[in-house]
């Protein structure tokens, strides 16, 4: 059953009105009295309500039409039954179909679609070039140093071929090419500091565009320039600013033309003020309605930034340290630029030292039996392709200890006044490398066997020495083990790696005479040191925790006596 809804009487002396808005679409379910269209006559503008409820089958009007009383607005369908013989309805359907076709031909094709069509096998012309840029470097990493450029101008390269090697604070990665082609020019050189989006090189020739990259960077640019070129031929005034207009002026130096897609709510004077102070207005939080930023907000932002060295990005240098004396007065000196790894370590250690009230306690474990057991496993480990190390055993023991003592697997969130207990047991292991201290993380150490832990630790340590660790492989630890036993230390005071709350230091085990009730016996004694955050952990907690670890090393069955903490 269908019903036609027509234009009602428009008013005294008003014969015609213009449709300024169509408020429903075909397929909509509408109520009686719901507004269908908006009409504007000489003086008044009115909404026309529906005289019935139902589903809109087709709409006979469009915006801009001039209508008069009695003219068909739309056809409603009361229920699922369609009267196919209804000629009017059919005619309307046709109109609707036509108008849809019209829309399709005039509506701007969404850019993605165009690209999707062009992408798959487009071999770029000789003249076509493709810019390859630095990808996202990882969370919290803004900059990295180019340590090697692996291709040269004129090289023909494959997609996914490594182009450059980057080293950020801790990780070093190779950046693969997102397309194949010939290297036209290289924009970087070794030693450059780069950030995301920066140009690496320009590819030309038979550049086959990788689909993903095409959508992201290369094709839109080309498409846009073509578009603007086409536009400039037409006598149009294109004047308002918008995000799409802006790239018409390519940016050549540091500053980008502002992306006006979502401008922050700040008056021009405030934007100028922020710029004079060297503040990126985008980072200021506004106190006004809808986040509007005032001059005071900018001032408060600067003040806060000055007061919290942690947020300023470089803790080590933010501290007010007096100038160094001129050491050359006393003898010959040599200076060396601080490496990225050293800078990162300095920053993280200062942060930890400043934030955490440290206490260190000491204990020792008799590992005579453990060493005996370790030797019995040589064959098993040989077959697995590795070696059972004390550190691997410590990983397992610590994971279980963390389960037993959840505070040691927690972080302290003073801003929100809460303790965050983590239900996973990732443990970092400090590795000494030629570049400095690196801390790869063994994930879910509680769930892994000693063989698996040994092999994984060995692999991660190798990656660390070869500078191949990814950021992910160094993230997420709740606790750290630092084993200096190989180098001969006994007890020491490690610094807790914030936001962790404890760190275990392991020294070299030595054979010592131990009184065994009747006589002194030679036993392997391993020194253990635990540093912890006294804001969260008390001395007694730490004593119990460290003793538990020592006991587990001495007689593993004791840790099986009690059930696991959930």
């Amino acid at each position, binding site marked *: 059953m269908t019903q036609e809804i027509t234009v009602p009487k428009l008013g005294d002396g008003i014969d015609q009105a213009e449709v*300024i808005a169509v*408020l429903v679409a075909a397929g909509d379910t509408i109520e009686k009295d719901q*507004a269908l269209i*908006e009409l*504007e006559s*000489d*003086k*008044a*503008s*009115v*909404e026309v309500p529906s005289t019935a409820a139902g589903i809109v089958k087709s709409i006979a009007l469009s915006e*801009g039409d001039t209508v008069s009383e009695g003219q068909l607005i739309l056809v409603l369908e009361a229920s699922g039954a369609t009267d196919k013989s209804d000629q009017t309805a059919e005619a309307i359907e046709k109109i609707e179909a036509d108008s849809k076709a019209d829309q399709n031909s005039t509506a*701007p094709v*969404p850019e993605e679609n165009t690209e999707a069509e062009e992408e798959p096998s487009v071999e770029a012309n000789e003249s076509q070039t493709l810019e390859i840029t630095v990808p996202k470097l990882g969370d919290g990493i803004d900059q990295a140093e180019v340590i090697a450029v692996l291709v040269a101008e004129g090289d023909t390269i494959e997609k996914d071929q490594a182009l450059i090697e980057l080293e950020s604070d801790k990780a070093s990665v190779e950046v693969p090419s997102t397309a194949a082609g010939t290297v036209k020019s290289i924009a970087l050189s070794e030693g450059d500091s780069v950030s995301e989006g920066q140009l690496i090189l320009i590819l030309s020739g038979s550049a086959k565009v990788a689909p993903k990259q095409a959508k992201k960077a290369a094709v839109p640019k080309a498409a846009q*320039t073509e578009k*603007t*070129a086409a536009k*400039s*031929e*037409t*006598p*149009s*005034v*294109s*004047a*308002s*600013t*918008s*995000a*799409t*207009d802006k790239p*018409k*002026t*390519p*940016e*050549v*130096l*540091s*500053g*980008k*033309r*502002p992306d*006006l*897609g979502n*401008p*922050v*709510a*700040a*008056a*021009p004077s405030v*934007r*100028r003020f922020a*710029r*004079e102070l*060297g503040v990126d207005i985008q980072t200021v939080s506004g106190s006004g*309605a*809808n986040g*509007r930023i005032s001059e005071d907000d900018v001032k408060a932002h600067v003040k806060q930034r000055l007061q919290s060295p942690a947020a300023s990005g470089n803790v080590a240098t933010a501290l007010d340290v007096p100038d160094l004396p001129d050491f050359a007065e006393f003898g010959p000196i040599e200076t060396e630029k601080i490496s990225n790894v050293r800078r990162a370590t300095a920053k993280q250690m200062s942060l930890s030292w400043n934030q955490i009230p440290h206490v260190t306690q000491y204990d020792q474990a008799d590992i005579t039996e453990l060493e005996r057991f370790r030797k019995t496993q040589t064959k098993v480990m040989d077959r697995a392709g590795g070696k059972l190390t004390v550190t691997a055993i410590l990983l397992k023991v610590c994971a279980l200890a963390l389960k037993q003592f959840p505070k040691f697997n927690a972080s302290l969130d003073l801003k929100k006044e809460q303790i965050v207990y983590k239900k996973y047991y990732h443990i970092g292991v400090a590795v000494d490398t030629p570049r400095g201290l690196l801390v790869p993380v063994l994930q879910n150490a509680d769930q892994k066997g000693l063989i698996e832990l040994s092999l994984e630790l060995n692999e991660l340590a190798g990656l660390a020495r070869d500078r191949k660790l990814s950021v992910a492989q160094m993230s997420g630890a709740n606790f750290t083990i630092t084993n200096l036993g190989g180098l001969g230390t006994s007890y020491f005071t490690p610094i807790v790696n914030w936001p962790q709350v404890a760190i275990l230091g392991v020294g070299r085990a030595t054979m010592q005479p131990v009184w065994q009730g009747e006589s002194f016996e030679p036993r392997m004694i391993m020194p253990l040191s635990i540093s912890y955050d006294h804001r969260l952990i008390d001395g007694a907690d730490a004593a119990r925790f460290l003793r538990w670890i020592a006991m587990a090393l001495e007689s593993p069955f004791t840790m099986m006596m009690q059930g696991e903490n959930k």
Partner: protein
Amino acid sequence: MSTKKTQVTVLGGGPGGYAAAFLAADLGLDVTLVEKRENPGGVCLYEGCIPSKALLHAAELIREARHASAWGLTFAEPEIDLDKLREWKDKGVVKKLTGGVGQLAKARKITYLRGSGTIKDKNTLAITTHEGKAETHTFEHLVIATGSHPIHLPFLPQSERVMDSTDALELKDIPKRLLVLGGGYIGLEMATAYSAFGSEVTVVEMLDSLLAAADDDLVKPLAKRLEGQLAKIMLKTKVTGAEENADGIKVSFEGPDGKAFEDSFDKILVSVGRRPNSKGIGLEAIGLDTDKQGFLPVNAQLQTQIPHIYAIGDLVGQPMLAHKASHEGRTAAEHIAGHKVAFEPYAIPAVVFTDPEIAWAGLTEKEAQEQGRKVEVARFPWAASGRAITLDRTEGLTKMIVDPETRRILGVGIVGKGAGELIAEGTLALEMGAVVDDVKLTIHAHPTLAETTMESAEVFFGQATHVYRPKRSK
């Protein structure tokens, strides 16, 4: 041969160049302005914005006088003394204004170097002075502000009958039949003026609408009115050739259906766009490349790849508008003076000085659609404006393009009498990051056309005093 040295040299004395020079001088720098003409002003003051507005004012007066007969106020048909009108435009307007700007340059102790300059190297210009002397001029900073020129169509004959906008503004005669090639703002403004002076004007446009960048609902009232003013508007139509003969110029067209046809005119005005003046100014001598369209790339501080060489205005990109150039010029000057600044406007208003005028700033509905951005549009029809009714000009429309989430005003569009003046409020609202509430809660004087801006903000809430259009519940 003399050698002069200066802290800031500005090459080109248009509205971008002289604004840069003036502010640089105000900031205490030693400034030289290199310009061919007797006084600063550029295309804008000599053969663009300003003289065209003088002619459009005259045209408006003619039309209003005619229109008044509808309310019983009948004037005789105007007698146009073309020489006098031209003299008023040239002396009363252009000379007065450019002379004034020249005085301002002098008052600021700016060295005005009349001549043409070419870049020789990174610190030197080769100058040919107005008197024909060759000089070199050294600078610490250079602001290149050489502007743009109208595009010429090579297939049209070289003839007095084929004009560009500069020729048309000279107002040599009133052609009986005028063809305006291009339905952009320059073409439509000149069509508006010449039709009022008595020409039978035909506009031909390749695209399917006039003023392609503007929103359709803004163009519509203008298109409707132009139908009454002009002889013909031919859309989707191409000019394929033109031939001059003894009594006119015969133009061949290709219509939307692909069919060819011909028509004869006394004159043709070519207004199909402008190109940047980036050739012949010596960019190659310092290794600066332009993009495919001839624009010189710059950063947000208006610096080229050579940090002490800046470029502004039509030379560096769209939109080619005097007010954009001036703002860029001032930004460049401040940066040279050591201030941390950037060209970062939220909106650059665009105005088409036709009858009715069209103006918009910020996001257009077309752009919102292209970006797939969700917006709400609040329209206030001038039929409900008391002031518009007293002017008997109710075809106008004021609209706000609003972010439905934050109620932030993203764009403002106006068509109607005086739209070019009214857009200023919208532009300020955009720059201030105003929400639509702000405009609604600002008292606007009654009865004014400016009230339509406030009422369009009220429409957003379904609360406009003079429009009953309740907010739809969602």
